[in-house]
């Protein structure tokens, strides 16, 4: 009788060990994925809080008119030029030319620098510039 109980106990104990060995890595992966995702979200949130932009000028010149929008990075975040969205009168427009402090090849729009967006053959009365983190600014075309 005593031997039966011991044998059964050993088998159940081995079962518990095998289950724990399967369960622990799953919990570990779950918490790691979740905490990585939360870290990334907090990073995005911090970037958003550190982002501030303002339109210095928006002018339409010439015939057909060329729209030139200059935007100042007033925040502390470094932004990506390729992730900037320009809306003219509420409609999405792809700029013909984008320069940061005169450099047309860079994608880095650092704090304190001015981004110039140029759109050919466009008329509009209102522009909206949206940065990568989603922070936006609007201005009337003067």
């Amino acid at each position, binding site marked *: 009788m005593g031997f039966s109980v011991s044998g059964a106990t050993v088998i159940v104990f081995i079962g518990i060990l095998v289950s724990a060995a399967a369960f622990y890595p799953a919990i570990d992966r*779950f918490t790691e994925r*979740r905490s990585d995702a939360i870290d*990334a979200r907090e990073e995005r949130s911090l970037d958003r809080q550190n982002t501030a932009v303002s339109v210095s000028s928006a002018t339409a010149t010439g015939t057909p008119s060329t729209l030139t929008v200059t935007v100042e990075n007033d925040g502390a975040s470094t932004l990506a030029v390729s*992730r900037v969205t320009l809306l003219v009168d509420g409609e999405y427009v792809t700029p013909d030319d984008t320069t940061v402090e005169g450099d047309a090849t860079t994608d880095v729009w650092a704090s304190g620098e001015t981004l110039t967006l140029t759109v050919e053959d466009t008329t509009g009365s*209102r522009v909206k510039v949206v940065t990568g983190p989603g922070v936006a600014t609007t201005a009337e075309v003067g």
Partner: protein
Amino acid sequence: MASESVTTLIIFIAAVSVAAGVSGAMVTSVGGIAGSLDDRGADVAKQIGTDVEIVSDPGSEALSRDHPADGDTDGTDDVVLLVKNVGDRTLLASTDGVEVLLDGRYVPPESYTVETVDGGTWDSGTVARVVVDKTLGTGDHRATIIVGSERETLRFAL
């Protein structure tokens, strides 16, 4: 004496069999739970990494307009929303990945289209255009875009 040994053997075999059954069931169940937990972890990470922003300019007239340039030929005004992916992952730019509510009412998938403005994938930082085949009257309106568990609402007046 011999019959006692047989009885003990039978009890031993029975005890070991029951224990093995219990252990087996436990290992199988825990394996299933571990698999579900893995899937759930991936889903939670996806949900947290999903973030969109309606970037349409409510101060312009472009939210409700006819747009023949995009192949719309019915001649009536549609609601046009621009939605930017500001999260970490690439989203599905189709009616399967995006749901729309207009003034709190569900819009069925056959009544709207979703496509990226550059025709590519809806990567982080890019914009998708949601066109709802519905003409709104003058007054205040509310448009809600739902992507996964992420929900964004834009209030505007026409």
